[in-house]
């Protein structure tokens, strides 16, 4: 009797949760399909996708996302690996540091970046390239909690010490150890960190806005103020993109690589 009632309640909550999530989604989707009067169609999507400003801002954000991912992988994989190997006592401290982006508002971060790096000797905000460097640095910080955690979890799943020693005794150098042993065994972890970073960068508004870079976030705000149907279509598109990313994580985590990580 008792278990039946629990399952009834859990169903209720699951349905309420799903409604909370899907009703606005459905509303948005429905709205985005009705740009033409009395007709269901993809006009809003066509308009968005053919807008040169959308294409260029999306391309820009895509570039930034890829570079951010490369930088944070290059930064975090060796760092977190070294902490696991040699400085395990530092782990709680580092964990706290990686949580800072959740605590410090992005607006504070971006003002800090601008105030520090627009001065001599950096003068980074003088050129688009310099500003992009700042932007990417900011993105790396914003995605740090995810990337750090993904790599940390991946490293916990393998015997870092013994694998390192096995590789060293076979004549591997430190770069060999990282590139030929650690990175291949972190494929899934790095991929999931990368996809979350991607989603973070693509949707980010404040950094790009204050640094005045032509990213997707500011574009969406502008179009949201000026238009009605197109923002809805954009919202659905970015949902789709995020879900595709999630799906990819799931797919890779379940494949051969995932099994090698979990079965040891």
């Amino acid at each position, binding site marked *: 009797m008792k278990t039946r009632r629990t399952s009834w309640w859990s169903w209720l909550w699951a349905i309420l949760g799903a409604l909370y999530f899907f009703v606005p989604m459905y509303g948005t989707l429905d709205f985005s399909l009705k740009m033409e009067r009395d007709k269901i169609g993809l006009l809003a999507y066509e308009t968005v996708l053919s807008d040169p400003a959308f294409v260029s801002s999306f391309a820009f954000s895509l570039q930034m996302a890829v570079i951010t991912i490369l930088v944070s992988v290059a930064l975090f994989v060796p760092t977190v690996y070294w902490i696991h190997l040699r400085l395990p006592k530092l782990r709680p401290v580092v964990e706290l540091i990686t949580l800072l982006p959740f605590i410090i508002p992005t607006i504070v971060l971006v003002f800090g970046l601008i105030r520090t790096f627009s001065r001599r000797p950096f003068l980074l905000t003088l050129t688009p390239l310099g500003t992009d460097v700042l932007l990417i640095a900011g993105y790396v910080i914003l995605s740090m909690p995810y990337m750090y955690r993904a790599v940390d979890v991946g490293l916990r799943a*393998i*015997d870092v010490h*013994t*694998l390192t*020693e*096995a*590789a*060293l*005794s*076979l*004549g*591997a*150098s430190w770069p*060999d150890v990282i590139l*030929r*042993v650690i990175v*291949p*065994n972190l*494929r899934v972890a790095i991929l999931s960190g990368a996809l979350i970073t991607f989603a973070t960068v693509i949707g980010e508004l404040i950094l790009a806005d204050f640094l005045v870079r032509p990213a997707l976030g500011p574009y969406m705000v502008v179009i949201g103020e000026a238009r009605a149907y197109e923002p809805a279509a954009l919202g659905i598109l970015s949902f789709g993109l995020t879900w595709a990313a999630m799906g990819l994580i799931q797919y890779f985590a379940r494949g051969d*690589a995932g*099994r*090698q*990580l979990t*079965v*040891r």
Partner: protein
Amino acid sequence: MPFLQLSDITKHFGANVAVERFNLGVERGEFVTFLGPSGCGKTTVLRMVAGFEQPTAGQIVLNNRDITTLPPNQRKIGMVFQSYALFPHLTAADNVAFGLKLTKMPTAEIKARVAEMLDLVLLGKFGGRYPYQLSGGQQQRVALARALALQPDLLLLDEPLSALDAKVRAEVRDEIRRIQRRLNITTVFVTHDQEEALSISDRIVVMNQGAVEQEGPPFEIYNYPRTAFVAAFVGTLNRLAGHVVDATQGRVRLGDVTLQTEAPLPHSDGAKVTVMMRPEELRLITVDADVSGLNGNVLDATVEAISFLGAVVRLQVRTSLAPLTIDVFNERQLQLPAVGDQRRITVPPEACLVMTDA
């Protein structure tokens, strides 16, 4: 100078002394085993030889080269770990090829060497399998092939059999020894299992609290332990407390019995000693058997338990001194006593190891 020479190796971890003035020479082609209880420093010594730990003091020379401070990836030392430590993302063949690919060896040659090594460990058909598709014993054999593929000067194995179950353990153990003989590779093997050490080694180094307690061939370690620690750690033992009554005659008093031992004792009369006897050296005889000429080395005993172990039958008996364990070789004509039967035990003088109490 021996092929591998460890001189006064010492290792401190903070205030904890893990290894203290450890000295050892290993000849080329020799199979040496470190045997000792958990925490006695076996792994630490091995890791210093491999280069994963830096000695606090002392020197390590391998093949006439001082390697004390050399990084591990330049030592040409193969290592096999208890946890196999195969690279999970590589097949067995790629694991074996890992070290070879880091050298400038041509691909065809690598392929040939990998095949040769997998054949050597009897896994020729398993090259395409990933570690998770192999059993523990197979994984450890791949790990061995991987360590040997680079033709290292020295092979180190740290409890490589501990994670395997009994039957596989014996198989892989024999395999390791066969391959070691075939390649004539100098090997240091670590274990806390005395049976493993006795069966596989040319020479055993018994360790206690970070230092060498005794070293020698298995036969010598087992039959002529020089300290109570070695005697107790290697094999099963009966221990009886007593004191020396006549050192020059080698006579020891245990309770109401005086035992004649083999030789004059280095102790003074009255010294407290422990007499140790291997279960297989005691003889069980019937109560009415002729005991003249046995110097009184006879104890009355009541059989309390019998366990059949296959090749031997182990008896637990009660005597006026203490409970004793006796091993009798199994044969079909063996007349086993029953529990509760009265018997006598004879103690050959040469079976008595007399140790000073610590």
